């Protein structure tokens, strides 16, 4: 299944079809009780991450 969602952490001009992305959780809104609501999004894979 291909899932659609927001793309974050990349400039508009740098987006390319086929680039490596990973799922991230980002803050999206604040609910009536002041709690942060999060959503899933896609961001470019971080090459300098611990597994890399």
């Amino acid at each position, binding site marked *: *299944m291909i*899932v659609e969602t927001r793309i974050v952490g990349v400039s508009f001009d740098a987006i390319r079809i086929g680039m490596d992305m990973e799922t991230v959780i980002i803050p*999206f809104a604040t609910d009536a009780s002041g709690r942060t609501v999060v959503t899933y999004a896609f961001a470019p894979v971080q090459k300098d991450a611990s597994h890399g």
Partner: protein
Amino acid sequence: MADVFIVGIGIHPFGRTDGLSGLQQGAYAARAAMADAGVAWQDIQFGFGGSDASGNADTIVNELGLTGLPFINVKNGCATGGSAMIGAWQGIASGQYDIGIALGFDKHPRGAFNAMPADYSLPNWYGSVGLMVTTQFFAMKLQRYMAHHGITSRSLGRVSEKAFDNAVHADHAWRRAPVDIDTILNAPMINDPLTKYMFCSPAEGGVALILASERKARELGRADVRIKAAAIRTRPPGSFEVFAPGLDIERGGAPTLLASAAAYAMAGVGPEDIDVAQLQDTESGAEIMHMAENGFCADGAQEEWLAEGWTRIDGKLPVNTDGGCLACGEPIGASGLRQVYENVIQLRGHGGGRQVPGNPKTAYTHVYGAPGISGVTILQR
């Protein structure tokens, strides 16, 4: 089933009409269609009609007269008009009635459609995070298609340029001034790769068709344009649709492929027999994708088709001869019937400056919309 003829057509110009409700624009179209057919409201035995955002079509009796006729309301998204026509067609083809009306109208506020997630079985968060914005979906679907099939931005520009060129000659169109391709390509980007001249806008308007049996059509002296096929289909597995939170990795069919195949089979003709086509152009890329999905060319061949002008009025398959949704805007309930109206104009040879040369005999319409539906009609003179 018996043959059914379109004996009268009427339209209220698309665009913005302050002071007239959607229903009143529908009534205007109905009166024009009855005048065209040479009949009165009292002669109409039944009706099917609908709007997406302008209320119940059966309240048309308040405008046209309390004759007690049966009138069935249709609410079927972008296929509302086509569904109304199918209802009226079947009522006559079955032998139950001799003459009836198919009606569609709408009046949408300015700005993009504001669809509610719950109406499409989606949770509210899906809308809150921004995924219900249709322009975004259409741009994303198009990006994928362009990457797979080598379609360029210039081709998107050519589709819009053609739409505005054609609409100059269509009285019912909304945007009736030519726009050159550089202006189209350099206009503000709405959703990459689509600029503001590449999207249709929600609009207002109304269209009515009077349908009749062969006996009645001959009596009226209007047995010239007959309905050869009308089909509506929902989405198959593996399709890529507006308001779908995800899609299968393995691509499948599309609702247009199903509706198109059903209509060709019903009419006993193929894409090579079509002389003029009205294809859903919600945005200019949609027209390009739908050229292939309706069987007129291979995926990717649209580059050559558009560069050579083969879908212009004097080309081998003129597409969207009145400027389509791009130039007429989209009043949802009326949009599919506008395409049929335009084809009747073309088959009668009444297109004036936008008339397709060579006495076209077979004409095709196609709509596509949320949440993955398509409707196709084929008319023949």
